[in-house]
């Protein structure tokens, strides 16, 4: 049995099922991170003193990571654009680059984390570090999740390209939307935690 509008758009809504689905999912993600940001504001405004992020955290490393994630968003778009222009080979290169940049982000984050632990700075040390580790940890899980999905489309999932290229292109687009969202969350996280 086939579900209608997985590949073709429904004429009166102009959308496929997957496109609405991913946007709804992102809406719920906004609420998830929104609640954490709200908690951050509440705890910070209630605190008698609060450290400035750059006195504890490594701003140059985080700036580097910001550039890495933004670049990966660009390569993600290029991967999708390659599929739109029917160039599967170029898609593989850009998708590979996106995943690689995700890895770079996680490795840098690993060094940041282990440096903090080495200095005896743990989530339990104070509420600044608590919110830092919770927010960035949850964000890293999202980066990792996005990488897993992208790796699937680079590997076993790409078989769909041969049989139904349009559907495959849509799926990559949806995965890209999630990836951009993860990027966007970092763009909010970076100034909030490192600079303010």
């Amino acid at each position, binding site marked *: *049995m086939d579900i209608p509008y997985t590949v*073709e758009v429904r004429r009166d809504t102009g959308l496929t099922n997957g496109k609405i*689905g991913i946007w709804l999912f992102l809406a719920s993600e906004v609420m998830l991170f929104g609640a*954490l940001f709200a908690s951050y504001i509440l*705890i910070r405004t*209630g605190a008698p003193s609060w450290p400035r992020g750059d006195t504890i955290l490594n701003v140059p490393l985080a700036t580097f990571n910001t550039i890495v994630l933004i670049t990966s968003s660009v390569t993600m778009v290029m991967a999708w654009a390659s599929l739109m222009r029917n160039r599967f080979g170029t898609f593989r290169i850009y998708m590979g680059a996106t995943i690689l940049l995700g890895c770079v982000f996680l490795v840098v984050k690993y060094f940041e984390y282990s440096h903090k632990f080495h200095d005896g700075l743990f989530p339990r040390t104070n509420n600044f570090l608590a919110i830092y580790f919770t927010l960035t940890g949850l964000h890293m899980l999202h980066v990792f999740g996005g990488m897993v999905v992208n790796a699937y489309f680079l590997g076993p999932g790409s078989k769909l390209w041969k049989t139904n290229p349009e559907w495959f292109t849509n799926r990559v687009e949806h995965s890209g939307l999630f990836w951009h969202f993860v990027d966007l969350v970092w763009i909010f996280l970076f100034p909030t935690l490192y600079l303010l």
Partner: protein
Amino acid sequence: MSQPAAVAVPHAHVEHESHDGPLGFWRTYVFSTDHKVIGIQYAITGLLFLLFGFSLMMLMRWQLAYPGAALPLLGGILGEGRMPGGTMLPEFYNELGAMHGTIMVFMGVVPLAVGGFGNFVLPLQIGAPDMAFPRLNMASYWFFFLGGVTMLASFFVPGGAAQSGWTSYTPLSVIAGTGQTVWLIGMVFLITSSLLGAVNFIVTTIQLRAKGLTFMRFPFFVWAQFVTAFLLLLAFPPLEAAATMQLMDRLAGTSFFLPSGLVVSGQVLTNAGGGNPILWQHLFWFLAHPEVYVLILPAMGIVAEIIANNTRKPLWGYRSMVWSLIFLGFMSFIVWAHHMFMTGMGTAMAAFFQTTTMIISIPSVVILTALVISLWGGSIRFNTPMLFAVGFLPMFGIGGLTGLPLGLNVADIPLHDTYYVIAHFHYVVAPGTIFALFAGIYYWYPKATGRKMNETLGKIHFAGSFVCMNVIFMPMFMLGLAGVSRRLFDGGATYAFAQPVLHLNVISSWGAWILALFQIPFIFNFFWSIRKGEKTDGNPWQATTIEWAAPSPPPHGNFLTPPEAFRGPYEYSVPGAAKDFVPQYEA
């Protein structure tokens, strides 16, 4: 299965897997992607959890009616760690209380109302072949199942299950035993499940509705599920955030919810401090107030369907009901702090939240009034679904109206910690929502099985339940107005002022136990009718909505020919028509 005719140009579906062949036992009944099977799985699991959660409460009612008395037989089975010599320990009472609430709300009513009825009925009512994402749908059920198993397992960890109430208020829940960690992990599974379900419901409703089925031709039930799905989608993530922070507090030693200098058992805690216990309440109620509407909206949807069908009249004020529903859904996000007047919030905040609370009661009253007026002048058929649906109206009315004093800061403060609150929301959820769910089971049972449930047993079930529900909950209003706290494990036996009303606890408890007896006809009827019930055709209730166009039970893919909607959902007793109903799906 083909496209619903001519809305879009079909593509070549080379890659689509074919479900047409026989699938074998496991793929048909256990790991099924068919929305009807998943709906029935949800419904049966939900019913079992309702029974289990009810059993926990019946144990608590023993302790409340006869505090300190040894419970014969069962007390011995539960063991020395919980009921030494048959007498209930306070810790065990707290476990029962916390788990009763959690199970009833998150694993009983919501899975039955949304997972069960939503999955089974919604795609049929909009003329869809299945949900938009069948495999996500299956994942949603199995996440729910995993969450349920996790919650049940928490009874067996050292120290027992969660003891901090279904609300898990901090800082108590942060310093509580291991059961609380398991509770949080279970909640994460349940939240994931409802998130997947919510996305699926919204996409299905928007995309897969039949040709001609515009939004204002939706049956009211579809609207109710649609709005509910938005509440689940947007309200649950903040609880997920809160659960993450509470897990961090418990496992990583952070202090999100622990204030500085907290003293526990005479010892100052060594954590960093600086946290805010009220933050948990905000995040929790930001979910849990919309959750109240998740509990009630599907029930209103079911009742609306059944009332229209059995009064043989169109719903009175369908459009205003729909707009009320949408307004209700929106407002439910900005009333949450009326659960928190006791935290001593400032008068400006309290004024805001009591104003929004009074405003949100208006659309509820509009819907309930429209349902009552729908009865006017109808030639009502009093079959079992209709009895439960009509029973819902005054019960929900009592629950709703007694909520008004709780929405006002000044009246809430003396009432908040008393049995009045228990009585109020149980009137909404127990004889309210659960009656509607029973109505729905009796009403759509023929669609799922091709047979009707027995009417006589159904009427015994209704009459007994209706009386018992009131015997249980009406005395609680009196206990509450007398000032008896709802958090005492002896039901107030140690307080002098409570002595004149303590006998009400006994009445309430006997009501609960007799209520259990009146569920036996239902359980028997439910299984007996699968094979022995009266056989029916596709449309046994002479109903107008699209689900009755499908065969009973519908095959995988639902409809033999793609249905089309030609008119509104409730064209009953149309003047000049040949029959007293004109189905939506007939040209």
